[in-house]
Protein backbone atom coordinates (compact mmCIF):
# COMPACT_ATOMS: atom_id res chain seq x y z
CA UNK A 1 0.00 0.00 0.00
CA UNK A 2 2.72 2.44 0.97
CA UNK A 3 5.06 1.63 -1.86
CA UNK A 4 3.08 -0.48 -4.32
CA UNK A 5 0.29 2.08 -4.92
CA UNK A 6 2.63 5.01 -5.73
CA UNK A 7 4.57 2.77 -8.12
CA UNK A 8 1.35 1.81 -9.87
CA UNK A 9 0.24 5.46 -10.06
CA UNK A 10 3.57 6.51 -11.59
CA UNK A 11 3.38 3.70 -14.11
CA UNK A 12 -0.22 4.36 -15.13
CA UNK A 13 0.12 8.13 -15.45
CA UNK A 14 3.41 7.94 -17.33
CA UNK A 15 1.90 5.31 -19.60
CA UNK A 16 -1.19 7.42 -20.34
CA UNK A 17 0.95 10.36 -21.43
CA UNK A 18 3.10 8.21 -23.70
CA UNK A 19 0.36 6.04 -25.21
CA UNK A 20 -1.99 8.92 -25.94
CA UNK A 21 0.82 10.59 -27.84
CA UNK A 22 0.61 7.76 -30.36
CA UNK A 23 -3.09 6.86 -30.13
CA UNK A 24 -5.42 9.84 -30.60
CA UNK A 25 -8.53 7.61 -30.58
CA UNK A 26 -10.93 7.53 -27.66
CA UNK A 27 -10.47 6.89 -24.77
CA UNK A 28 -6.82 7.94 -24.88
CA UNK A 29 -7.05 11.43 -26.38
CA UNK A 30 -9.66 12.84 -23.96
CA UNK A 31 -8.06 10.91 -21.10
CA UNK A 32 -4.77 12.72 -21.72
CA UNK A 33 -6.53 16.08 -21.70
CA UNK A 34 -8.11 15.44 -18.32
CA UNK A 35 -4.98 13.93 -16.78
CA UNK A 36 -2.97 16.99 -17.72
CA UNK A 37 -5.54 19.29 -16.11
CA UNK A 38 -5.37 17.22 -12.94
CA UNK A 39 -1.59 17.37 -13.08
CA UNK A 40 -1.69 21.13 -13.24
CA UNK A 41 -4.01 21.39 -10.24
CA UNK A 42 -1.88 19.07 -8.12
CA UNK A 43 1.28 20.82 -9.22
CA UNK A 44 -0.12 24.15 -8.05
CA UNK A 45 0.17 22.85 -4.54
CA UNK A 46 3.88 22.11 -4.80
CA UNK A 47 4.33 25.87 -4.50
CA UNK A 48 2.74 25.54 -1.07
CA UNK A 49 5.21 22.92 0.15
CA UNK A 50 7.99 25.50 0.09
CA UNK A 51 5.79 28.07 1.84
CA UNK A 52 4.85 25.48 4.44
CA UNK A 53 8.45 24.55 5.27
CA UNK A 54 9.48 28.20 5.43
CA UNK A 55 6.72 29.14 7.85
CA UNK A 56 7.53 26.14 10.02
CA UNK A 57 11.23 26.94 10.02
CA UNK A 58 10.68 30.48 11.18
CA UNK A 59 8.10 29.53 13.80
CA UNK A 60 10.64 27.08 15.21
CA UNK A 61 13.40 29.66 15.19
CA UNK A 62 11.26 32.17 17.04
CA UNK A 63 10.19 29.63 19.63
CA UNK A 64 13.71 28.50 20.36
CA UNK A 65 15.03 32.08 20.31
CA UNK A 66 17.75 30.75 18.05
CA UNK A 67 20.51 33.16 17.09
CA UNK A 68 19.14 35.72 14.64
CA UNK A 69 15.54 34.89 15.56
CA UNK A 70 14.48 38.47 15.04
CA UNK A 71 14.99 37.95 11.33
CA UNK A 72 12.04 35.58 11.60
CA UNK A 73 9.98 38.53 12.75
CA UNK A 74 11.04 40.33 9.58
CA UNK A 75 10.02 37.25 7.63
CA UNK A 76 6.55 37.27 9.13
CA UNK A 77 6.22 41.01 8.66
CA UNK A 78 6.76 40.56 4.93
CA UNK A 79 4.58 37.46 4.90
CA UNK A 80 1.56 38.98 6.61
CA UNK A 81 1.88 42.30 4.86
CA UNK A 82 1.67 40.56 1.50
CA UNK A 83 -1.11 38.28 2.66
CA UNK A 84 -3.24 41.14 3.95
CA UNK A 85 -2.88 43.36 0.89
CA UNK A 86 -3.46 40.28 -1.25
CA UNK A 87 -6.70 39.40 0.48
CA UNK A 88 -7.90 43.02 0.36
CA UNK A 89 -7.23 43.11 -3.39
CA UNK A 90 -8.97 39.79 -3.93
CA UNK A 91 -12.06 41.10 -2.20
CA UNK A 92 -12.04 44.37 -4.11
CA UNK A 93 -11.23 43.25 -7.66
CA UNK A 94 -11.63 40.10 -9.72
CA UNK A 95 -7.89 40.16 -10.48
CA UNK A 96 -5.52 41.14 -7.67
CA UNK A 97 -2.57 41.17 -10.07
CA UNK A 98 -3.88 44.03 -12.17
CA UNK A 99 -1.77 47.23 -12.08
CA UNK A 100 -3.45 49.70 -9.74
CA UNK A 101 -4.39 47.34 -6.91
CA UNK A 102 -2.57 47.73 -3.60
CA UNK A 103 -1.29 44.20 -4.06
CA UNK A 104 0.42 45.31 -7.23
CA UNK A 105 1.96 48.27 -5.40
CA UNK A 106 3.27 45.95 -2.73
CA UNK A 107 4.85 43.84 -5.43
CA UNK A 108 6.39 46.88 -7.08
CA UNK A 109 7.67 48.35 -3.84
CA UNK A 110 9.11 45.24 -2.24
CA UNK A 111 9.42 42.29 -4.55
CA UNK A 112 10.80 43.92 -7.68
CA UNK A 113 13.63 45.91 -6.02
CA UNK A 114 14.70 43.06 -3.75
CA UNK A 115 14.68 40.29 -6.31
CA UNK A 116 16.21 42.26 -9.14
CA UNK A 117 18.93 43.78 -6.95
CA UNK A 118 19.96 40.37 -5.69
CA UNK A 119 20.60 39.31 -9.24
CA UNK A 120 22.21 42.64 -10.08
CA UNK A 121 24.84 41.85 -7.44
CA UNK A 122 26.00 39.09 -9.73
CA UNK A 123 27.43 41.68 -12.09
CA UNK A 124 30.05 42.51 -9.46
CA UNK A 125 30.69 38.89 -8.64
CA UNK A 126 31.00 37.88 -12.27
CA UNK A 127 33.56 40.65 -12.81
CA UNK A 128 35.59 39.59 -9.82
CA UNK A 129 35.29 35.91 -10.75
CA UNK A 130 36.41 36.51 -14.32
CA UNK A 131 39.43 38.42 -13.09
CA UNK A 132 40.37 35.82 -10.51
CA UNK A 133 39.57 32.59 -12.25
CA UNK A 134 40.27 33.34 -15.90
CA UNK A 135 43.97 32.55 -15.98
CA UNK A 136 45.54 30.89 -18.98
CA UNK A 137 46.73 27.96 -16.89
CA UNK A 138 46.09 25.19 -19.40
CA UNK A 139 45.17 24.88 -23.04
CA UNK A 140 41.54 24.35 -22.06
CA UNK A 141 41.44 27.40 -19.82
CA UNK A 142 43.06 29.48 -22.56
CA UNK A 143 40.44 28.46 -25.12
CA UNK A 144 37.69 29.27 -22.64
CA UNK A 145 39.22 32.65 -22.00
CA UNK A 146 39.66 33.60 -25.64
CA UNK A 147 36.13 32.57 -26.58
CA UNK A 148 34.73 34.51 -23.62
CA UNK A 149 36.64 37.65 -24.53
CA UNK A 150 35.60 37.48 -28.20
CA UNK A 151 31.94 37.13 -27.28
CA UNK A 152 32.11 39.78 -24.56
CA UNK A 153 33.63 42.37 -26.85
CA UNK A 154 31.94 41.26 -30.04
CA UNK A 155 28.45 41.42 -28.57
CA UNK A 156 28.63 45.10 -27.59
CA UNK A 157 28.86 48.19 -29.83
CA UNK A 158 32.44 48.79 -28.64
CA UNK A 159 33.51 45.63 -30.48
CA UNK A 160 32.29 47.06 -33.76
CA UNK A 161 34.24 50.25 -33.20
CA UNK A 162 37.34 48.28 -32.39
CA UNK A 163 37.13 46.17 -35.52
CA UNK A 164 34.08 46.19 -37.77
CA UNK A 165 34.25 42.44 -38.31
CA UNK A 166 34.31 41.52 -34.63
CA UNK A 167 30.50 41.24 -34.20
CA UNK A 168 30.45 38.87 -37.18
CA UNK A 169 33.20 36.75 -35.65
CA UNK A 170 31.42 36.66 -32.30
CA UNK A 171 28.25 35.52 -34.06
CA UNK A 172 30.21 32.87 -35.91
CA UNK A 173 31.78 31.55 -32.70
CA UNK A 174 28.31 31.31 -31.26
CA UNK A 175 26.45 29.94 -34.25
CA UNK A 176 29.02 27.42 -35.40
CA UNK A 177 31.72 26.51 -32.87
CA UNK A 178 29.62 26.86 -29.73
CA UNK A 179 26.51 25.42 -31.32
CA UNK A 180 28.01 22.06 -32.26
CA UNK A 181 29.41 21.37 -28.80
CA UNK A 182 26.24 22.56 -27.07
CA UNK A 183 24.23 20.24 -29.30
CA UNK A 184 26.46 17.32 -28.36
CA UNK A 185 26.00 18.09 -24.68
CA UNK A 186 22.25 18.47 -25.09
CA UNK A 187 21.89 15.17 -26.93
CA UNK A 188 23.81 13.41 -24.16
CA UNK A 189 21.68 15.01 -21.47
CA UNK A 190 18.50 14.14 -23.37
CA UNK A 191 19.47 10.47 -23.63
CA UNK A 192 20.15 10.43 -19.89
CA UNK A 193 16.82 12.11 -19.19
CA UNK A 194 14.87 9.62 -21.30
CA UNK A 195 16.65 6.70 -19.62
CA UNK A 196 15.86 8.16 -16.19
CA UNK A 197 12.20 8.73 -17.12
CA UNK A 198 11.80 5.18 -18.36
CA UNK A 199 13.35 3.96 -15.12
CA UNK A 200 10.86 6.04 -13.17
CA UNK A 201 7.85 4.85 -15.15
CA UNK A 202 8.88 1.21 -14.92
CA UNK A 203 9.53 1.49 -11.18
CA UNK A 204 13.24 0.75 -11.39
CA UNK A 205 14.16 4.14 -9.93
CA UNK A 206 12.50 4.50 -6.53
CA UNK A 207 14.68 6.92 -4.60
CA UNK A 208 11.91 9.53 -4.61
CA UNK A 209 9.76 7.22 -2.51
CA UNK A 210 12.28 6.66 0.25
Amino acid at each position, binding site marked *: MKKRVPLVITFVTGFIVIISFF*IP*HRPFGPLETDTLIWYSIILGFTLLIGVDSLVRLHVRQMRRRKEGWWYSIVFFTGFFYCLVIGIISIMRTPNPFQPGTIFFYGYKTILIPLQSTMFALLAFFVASA*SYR*AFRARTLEATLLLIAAVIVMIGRVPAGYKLWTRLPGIANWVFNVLQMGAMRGIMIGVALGAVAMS*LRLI*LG*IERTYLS
Partner: protein
Amino acid sequence: MILLLALAFSISAKDTPDDGGGSITVNVYNIPEGTARIELSRLEKGDMLYKEAGLIPIFKGECDDASVVDGIGYLYRGKAIAKDTFYIAEMEGFVTSSPQWFNKSRITVLIFLILFGSVVLTYIQLAKKNPEGLFIRKLPALDAIDEAVGRSTEMGKPVLFVPGLEGITDAGTLASLTILEMVGKKVAEYGSRVIHPNFDPIVMTTAQETLKTAFAEAGRPDAFNKDDVFYLTYEQFGFAAGVDGIMLRERPGAIFLQGYFYAESLILAETGYSIGAIQIAGTNATTQLPFFVAACDYVLLGEEMFAASAYISREPRLLGSIKGSDLAKVVLLFMIGAGVIFGTIAGIAKQGGNPTYMQIFNKMLEFLAKGAK
Protein backbone atom coordinates in the same frame (compact mmCIF):
# COMPACT_ATOMS: atom_id res chain seq x y z
CA MET B 1 -6.25 32.47 -69.79
CA ILE B 2 -5.63 28.95 -68.50
CA LEU B 3 -3.25 30.42 -65.99
CA LEU B 4 -5.97 32.69 -64.69
CA LEU B 5 -8.40 29.82 -64.34
CA ALA B 6 -5.84 27.74 -62.47
CA LEU B 7 -5.45 30.52 -59.96
CA ALA B 8 -9.15 30.74 -59.11
CA PHE B 9 -10.06 30.83 -55.41
CA SER B 10 -10.88 27.27 -54.36
CA ILE B 11 -11.53 25.13 -51.31
CA SER B 12 -10.96 21.54 -50.24
CA ALA B 13 -11.60 19.58 -47.08
CA LYS B 14 -10.57 16.24 -45.62
CA ASP B 15 -10.79 14.35 -42.35
CA THR B 16 -8.07 15.76 -40.08
CA PRO B 17 -5.37 13.09 -40.19
CA ASP B 18 -3.98 11.42 -37.06
CA ASP B 19 -6.51 12.82 -34.61
CA GLY B 20 -9.14 11.62 -32.17
CA GLY B 21 -12.04 12.44 -34.48
CA GLY B 22 -14.53 15.29 -34.51
CA SER B 23 -12.46 17.46 -36.79
CA ILE B 24 -12.22 18.26 -40.50
CA THR B 25 -9.30 20.13 -42.03
CA VAL B 26 -10.32 22.77 -44.57
CA ASN B 27 -7.87 24.33 -47.01
CA VAL B 28 -8.35 27.30 -49.29
CA TYR B 29 -6.12 28.00 -52.26
CA ASN B 30 -5.25 31.10 -54.28
CA ILE B 31 -6.61 33.59 -51.80
CA PRO B 32 -7.47 36.70 -53.85
CA GLU B 33 -5.32 39.79 -53.47
CA GLY B 34 -6.62 42.24 -50.86
CA THR B 35 -8.63 39.73 -48.86
CA ALA B 36 -9.36 41.01 -45.35
CA ARG B 37 -10.86 37.81 -43.96
CA ILE B 38 -12.15 34.45 -45.07
CA GLU B 39 -15.44 33.26 -43.63
CA LEU B 40 -16.15 29.58 -43.54
CA SER B 41 -19.59 28.05 -43.60
CA ARG B 42 -20.71 24.44 -43.84
CA LEU B 43 -23.73 22.46 -44.94
CA GLU B 44 -24.66 19.31 -43.06
CA LYS B 45 -25.89 16.42 -45.20
CA GLY B 46 -29.70 16.58 -45.23
CA ASP B 47 -29.81 20.25 -44.31
CA MET B 48 -30.77 23.02 -46.71
CA LEU B 49 -28.78 25.94 -45.43
CA TYR B 50 -25.12 26.71 -44.88
CA LYS B 51 -24.22 27.56 -41.30
CA GLU B 52 -21.37 29.70 -40.01
CA ALA B 53 -18.24 27.74 -39.12
CA GLY B 54 -15.69 30.36 -38.17
CA LEU B 55 -12.83 32.08 -39.98
CA ILE B 56 -9.87 30.72 -41.89
CA PRO B 57 -6.57 32.37 -40.92
CA ILE B 58 -5.15 33.97 -44.05
CA PHE B 59 -1.53 33.34 -43.09
CA LYS B 60 -1.84 29.65 -43.72
CA GLY B 61 -5.12 29.24 -45.59
CA GLU B 62 -6.01 26.26 -43.46
CA CYS B 63 -8.18 25.55 -40.46
CA ASP B 64 -9.53 22.65 -38.48
CA ASP B 65 -13.29 22.68 -37.97
CA ALA B 66 -13.48 20.88 -34.64
CA SER B 67 -17.23 21.22 -34.12
CA VAL B 68 -18.26 18.39 -36.48
CA VAL B 69 -19.72 15.03 -35.55
CA ASP B 70 -17.98 11.85 -36.72
CA GLY B 71 -19.72 9.99 -39.54
CA ILE B 72 -21.87 12.88 -40.84
CA GLY B 73 -21.20 14.35 -44.28
CA TYR B 74 -20.38 18.06 -44.64
CA LEU B 75 -19.97 20.51 -47.51
CA TYR B 76 -17.82 23.60 -47.00
CA ARG B 77 -17.94 27.05 -48.52
CA GLY B 78 -15.29 29.74 -48.21
CA LYS B 79 -16.07 33.42 -48.62
CA ALA B 80 -13.06 35.67 -49.11
CA ILE B 81 -14.08 39.20 -48.25
CA ALA B 82 -12.04 42.03 -49.74
CA LYS B 83 -12.63 45.76 -49.38
CA ASP B 84 -15.68 46.09 -51.60
CA THR B 85 -16.09 42.70 -53.18
CA PHE B 86 -16.07 39.04 -52.23
CA TYR B 87 -15.16 35.67 -53.75
CA ILE B 88 -16.80 32.36 -53.09
CA ALA B 89 -15.27 28.88 -53.24
CA GLU B 90 -17.36 25.73 -52.92
CA MET B 91 -16.72 22.01 -52.71
CA GLU B 92 -18.20 19.19 -54.75
CA GLY B 93 -18.42 16.09 -52.53
CA PHE B 94 -19.24 15.57 -48.88
CA VAL B 95 -16.52 14.84 -46.33
CA THR B 96 -16.83 13.02 -43.02
CA SER B 97 -14.54 12.93 -40.01
CA SER B 98 -13.34 9.89 -38.09
CA PRO B 99 -10.90 9.09 -35.27
CA GLN B 100 -7.64 7.26 -36.00
CA TRP B 101 -6.04 4.50 -33.97
CA PHE B 102 -2.47 5.46 -34.63
CA ASN B 103 -0.79 8.75 -35.33
CA LYS B 104 1.33 7.82 -38.33
CA SER B 105 3.30 11.04 -38.31
CA ARG B 106 4.87 9.98 -35.01
CA ILE B 107 6.18 6.58 -36.09
CA THR B 108 9.83 7.66 -35.85
CA VAL B 109 9.37 8.63 -32.21
CA LEU B 110 7.85 5.23 -31.47
CA ILE B 111 10.71 3.38 -33.19
CA PHE B 112 13.28 5.38 -31.28
CA LEU B 113 11.45 4.91 -27.97
CA ILE B 114 11.16 1.14 -28.38
CA LEU B 115 14.76 0.66 -29.51
CA PHE B 116 16.29 2.89 -26.87
CA GLY B 117 14.04 1.56 -24.11
CA SER B 118 14.88 -2.05 -24.84
CA VAL B 119 18.61 -1.31 -25.02
CA VAL B 120 18.55 0.37 -21.60
CA LEU B 121 16.46 -2.41 -20.06
CA THR B 122 18.71 -5.11 -21.52
CA TYR B 123 21.78 -3.45 -20.11
CA ILE B 124 20.14 -3.12 -16.70
CA GLN B 125 19.46 -6.87 -16.76
CA LEU B 126 23.05 -7.54 -17.83
CA ALA B 127 24.36 -5.31 -15.07
CA LYS B 128 22.25 -7.15 -12.51
CA LYS B 129 23.82 -10.44 -13.54
CA ASN B 130 27.38 -9.18 -13.72
CA PRO B 131 27.96 -5.59 -12.57
CA GLU B 132 31.73 -5.84 -12.99
CA GLY B 133 31.41 -7.00 -16.57
CA LEU B 134 30.28 -3.64 -17.92
CA PHE B 135 33.14 -1.29 -18.58
CA ILE B 136 32.89 2.39 -17.78
CA ARG B 137 35.82 4.74 -18.08
CA LYS B 138 37.24 5.99 -14.82
CA LEU B 139 37.09 9.75 -14.59
CA PRO B 140 40.09 11.76 -13.39
CA ALA B 141 37.92 13.68 -10.95
CA LEU B 142 37.30 10.43 -9.06
CA ASP B 143 41.01 9.88 -8.48
CA ALA B 144 41.20 13.46 -7.35
CA ILE B 145 38.68 12.81 -4.56
CA ASP B 146 41.17 10.62 -2.77
CA GLU B 147 43.96 13.14 -3.19
CA ALA B 148 41.80 16.10 -2.12
CA VAL B 149 40.52 14.42 1.04
CA GLY B 150 44.02 13.21 1.86
CA ARG B 151 45.64 16.60 1.48
CA SER B 152 42.87 18.29 3.38
CA THR B 153 43.44 15.89 6.30
CA GLU B 154 47.20 16.49 6.24
CA MET B 155 46.57 20.19 6.60
CA GLY B 156 44.17 19.49 9.45
CA LYS B 157 41.28 21.04 7.58
CA PRO B 158 37.72 19.74 7.13
CA VAL B 159 36.03 18.83 3.83
CA LEU B 160 33.03 20.83 2.58
CA PHE B 161 30.34 19.15 0.49
CA VAL B 162 27.59 21.28 -1.09
CA PRO B 163 24.75 19.23 -2.67
CA GLY B 164 23.24 21.90 -4.90
CA LEU B 165 19.85 23.57 -4.79
CA GLU B 166 17.52 20.95 -6.20
CA GLY B 167 15.25 18.43 -4.58
CA ILE B 168 15.59 14.68 -4.33
CA THR B 169 13.89 14.00 -7.68
CA ASP B 170 16.64 15.74 -9.63
CA ALA B 171 19.09 13.39 -11.33
CA GLY B 172 21.98 15.64 -10.32
CA THR B 173 21.07 15.47 -6.63
CA LEU B 174 20.83 11.69 -6.83
CA ALA B 175 24.28 11.49 -8.41
CA SER B 176 25.56 13.91 -5.79
CA LEU B 177 24.44 11.54 -3.02
CA THR B 178 26.38 8.65 -4.56
CA ILE B 179 29.50 10.79 -4.75
CA LEU B 180 28.90 11.88 -1.16
CA GLU B 181 28.98 8.25 -0.12
CA MET B 182 32.43 7.82 -1.63
CA VAL B 183 33.70 11.06 -0.12
CA GLY B 184 32.24 10.03 3.23
CA LYS B 185 34.11 6.72 3.17
CA LYS B 186 37.40 8.43 2.38
CA VAL B 187 36.85 11.03 5.09
CA ALA B 188 36.10 8.29 7.62
CA GLU B 189 39.22 6.36 6.60
CA TYR B 190 41.43 9.40 7.00
CA GLY B 191 39.72 10.39 10.24
CA SER B 192 38.74 13.81 8.92
CA ARG B 193 35.43 15.67 9.05
CA VAL B 194 32.85 16.55 6.38
CA ILE B 195 30.59 19.62 6.55
CA HIS B 196 27.37 19.33 4.54
CA PRO B 197 25.10 22.42 4.46
CA ASN B 198 21.67 21.88 2.88
CA PHE B 199 19.13 23.79 0.88
CA ASP B 200 16.41 21.13 0.84
CA PRO B 201 15.20 19.43 4.03
CA ILE B 202 14.58 16.07 2.35
CA VAL B 203 18.03 16.04 0.81
CA MET B 204 19.40 16.76 4.27
CA THR B 205 17.81 13.68 5.84
CA THR B 206 18.94 11.51 2.95
CA ALA B 207 22.49 12.89 3.19
CA GLN B 208 22.59 12.14 6.91
CA GLU B 209 21.61 8.55 6.23
CA THR B 210 24.14 8.27 3.40
CA LEU B 211 27.03 9.57 5.48
CA LYS B 212 26.07 7.43 8.45
CA THR B 213 26.23 4.32 6.26
CA ALA B 214 29.50 5.48 4.70
CA PHE B 215 31.17 5.97 8.10
CA ALA B 216 29.84 2.64 9.29
CA GLU B 217 31.15 0.85 6.20
CA ALA B 218 34.54 2.42 6.76
CA GLY B 219 34.47 0.92 10.25
CA ARG B 220 34.17 4.20 12.13
CA PRO B 221 30.45 4.70 12.87
CA ASP B 222 31.24 6.70 16.02
CA ALA B 223 33.24 9.30 14.08
CA PHE B 224 30.13 10.55 12.31
CA ASN B 225 28.68 13.74 13.73
CA LYS B 226 25.06 14.24 12.66
CA ASP B 227 25.26 17.98 13.29
CA ASP B 228 27.78 18.38 10.48
CA VAL B 229 24.89 17.79 8.07
CA PHE B 230 22.58 20.72 8.70
CA TYR B 231 19.87 22.81 7.12
CA LEU B 232 20.91 26.30 6.09
CA THR B 233 18.09 28.21 4.43
CA TYR B 234 15.47 28.07 1.73
CA GLU B 235 16.63 31.16 -0.14
CA GLN B 236 19.09 31.10 -3.01
CA PHE B 237 21.32 34.00 -2.08
CA GLY B 238 20.89 33.38 1.61
CA PHE B 239 22.27 29.92 0.97
CA ALA B 240 25.19 31.31 -1.04
CA ALA B 241 25.99 33.80 1.72
CA GLY B 242 25.77 31.07 4.35
CA VAL B 243 28.11 28.70 2.50
CA ASP B 244 30.46 31.59 1.83
CA GLY B 245 30.58 32.25 5.55
CA ILE B 246 31.37 28.60 6.27
CA MET B 247 34.19 28.66 3.74
CA LEU B 248 35.75 31.74 5.30
CA ARG B 249 35.34 30.51 8.88
CA GLU B 250 36.20 26.84 8.56
CA ARG B 251 38.73 27.18 5.72
CA PRO B 252 38.07 23.69 4.29
CA GLY B 253 40.97 22.07 2.43
CA ALA B 254 38.71 20.40 -0.11
CA ILE B 255 35.38 21.62 -1.48
CA PHE B 256 32.89 19.48 -3.37
CA LEU B 257 30.21 21.34 -5.30
CA GLN B 258 28.08 18.49 -6.57
CA GLY B 259 24.47 18.77 -7.70
CA TYR B 260 22.21 21.19 -9.53
CA PHE B 261 23.25 24.83 -9.14
CA TYR B 262 21.82 28.13 -10.29
CA ALA B 263 23.30 31.62 -10.47
CA GLU B 264 24.96 31.28 -7.06
CA SER B 265 27.47 28.80 -8.52
CA LEU B 266 29.96 31.50 -9.35
CA ILE B 267 29.84 33.05 -5.86
CA LEU B 268 30.59 29.66 -4.31
CA ALA B 269 33.30 28.66 -6.78
CA GLU B 270 35.07 31.99 -6.52
CA THR B 271 35.15 32.08 -2.72
CA GLY B 272 36.41 28.50 -2.72
CA TYR B 273 39.12 29.46 -5.17
CA SER B 274 40.13 32.48 -3.10
CA ILE B 275 40.70 30.41 0.07
CA GLY B 276 42.91 28.04 -1.91
CA ALA B 277 40.93 24.84 -1.42
CA ILE B 278 41.04 21.99 -3.90
CA GLN B 279 37.69 22.22 -5.61
CA ILE B 280 35.95 19.31 -7.29
CA ALA B 281 32.71 20.40 -8.92
CA GLY B 282 30.04 18.57 -10.85
CA THR B 283 26.68 19.71 -12.13
CA ASN B 284 24.02 18.82 -14.63
CA ALA B 285 23.16 22.53 -14.97
CA THR B 286 24.79 23.23 -18.32
CA THR B 287 24.52 27.00 -17.92
CA GLN B 288 26.61 26.97 -14.75
CA LEU B 289 29.41 24.72 -16.00
CA PRO B 290 31.57 27.57 -17.38
CA PHE B 291 32.04 29.05 -13.91
CA PHE B 292 33.03 25.74 -12.42
CA VAL B 293 35.44 25.05 -15.27
CA ALA B 294 37.05 28.45 -14.74
CA ALA B 295 37.35 28.32 -10.96
CA CYS B 296 37.60 24.65 -9.95
CA ASP B 297 40.38 22.11 -10.20
CA TYR B 298 38.27 19.21 -11.40
CA VAL B 299 34.81 19.30 -12.94
CA LEU B 300 32.37 16.54 -13.75
CA LEU B 301 30.63 17.93 -16.85
CA GLY B 302 26.92 17.09 -16.90
CA GLU B 303 26.63 13.47 -17.90
CA GLU B 304 30.04 12.69 -16.42
CA MET B 305 28.37 13.09 -13.06
CA PHE B 306 25.97 10.27 -13.83
CA ALA B 307 28.80 8.14 -15.18
CA ALA B 308 30.81 8.80 -12.03
CA SER B 309 27.94 7.76 -9.79
CA ALA B 310 27.43 4.60 -11.83
CA TYR B 311 31.16 3.87 -11.66
CA ILE B 312 31.26 4.28 -7.88
CA SER B 313 28.03 2.54 -6.94
CA ARG B 314 27.96 -0.19 -9.62
CA GLU B 315 24.19 -0.05 -9.30
CA PRO B 316 22.62 -1.94 -12.21
CA ARG B 317 20.02 0.75 -12.93
CA LEU B 318 22.69 3.45 -13.21
CA LEU B 319 25.18 1.30 -15.11
CA GLY B 320 22.48 0.10 -17.48
CA SER B 321 21.37 3.62 -18.30
CA ILE B 322 24.90 4.82 -18.98
CA LYS B 323 25.65 1.84 -21.20
CA GLY B 324 22.33 2.23 -22.96
CA SER B 325 23.04 5.90 -23.66
CA ASP B 326 26.51 4.98 -24.89
CA LEU B 327 25.11 2.52 -27.39
CA ALA B 328 22.54 5.08 -28.51
CA LYS B 329 25.37 7.55 -29.06
CA VAL B 330 27.20 5.07 -31.25
CA VAL B 331 24.06 4.59 -33.32
CA LEU B 332 23.52 8.34 -33.58
CA LEU B 333 27.16 8.86 -34.59
CA PHE B 334 26.84 6.27 -37.34
CA MET B 335 23.64 7.87 -38.56
CA ILE B 336 25.31 11.28 -38.62
CA GLY B 337 28.37 9.86 -40.42
CA ALA B 338 26.37 7.95 -43.01
CA GLY B 339 23.95 10.82 -43.47
CA VAL B 340 26.67 13.41 -43.97
CA ILE B 341 28.51 11.23 -46.50
CA PHE B 342 25.32 10.51 -48.43
CA GLY B 343 24.28 14.14 -48.28
CA THR B 344 27.65 15.26 -49.57
CA ILE B 345 27.50 12.80 -52.46
CA ALA B 346 23.96 13.97 -53.17
CA GLY B 347 25.21 17.55 -53.10
CA ILE B 348 27.97 16.80 -55.59
CA ALA B 349 25.51 14.94 -57.80
CA LYS B 350 23.14 17.86 -57.68
CA GLN B 351 25.82 20.26 -58.72
CA GLY B 352 26.57 17.85 -61.55
CA GLY B 353 22.95 18.13 -62.69
CA ASN B 354 21.40 15.11 -60.98
CA PRO B 355 18.98 16.16 -58.23
CA THR B 356 17.52 12.67 -57.57
CA TYR B 357 19.85 11.82 -54.70
CA MET B 358 19.22 15.15 -53.05
CA GLN B 359 15.49 14.45 -53.16
CA ILE B 360 16.05 11.06 -51.51
CA PHE B 361 18.29 12.72 -48.93
CA ASN B 362 15.65 15.30 -48.08
CA LYS B 363 12.96 12.60 -47.84
CA MET B 364 15.10 10.72 -45.36
CA LEU B 365 15.58 13.81 -43.25
CA GLU B 366 11.85 14.48 -43.39
CA PHE B 367 11.25 10.99 -42.03
CA LEU B 368 13.53 11.66 -39.06
CA ALA B 369 11.65 14.72 -37.97
CA LYS B 370 8.97 16.79 -39.61
CA GLY B 371 10.33 20.12 -40.67
CA ALA B 372 9.01 23.39 -39.39
CA LYS B 373 6.55 25.14 -41.67
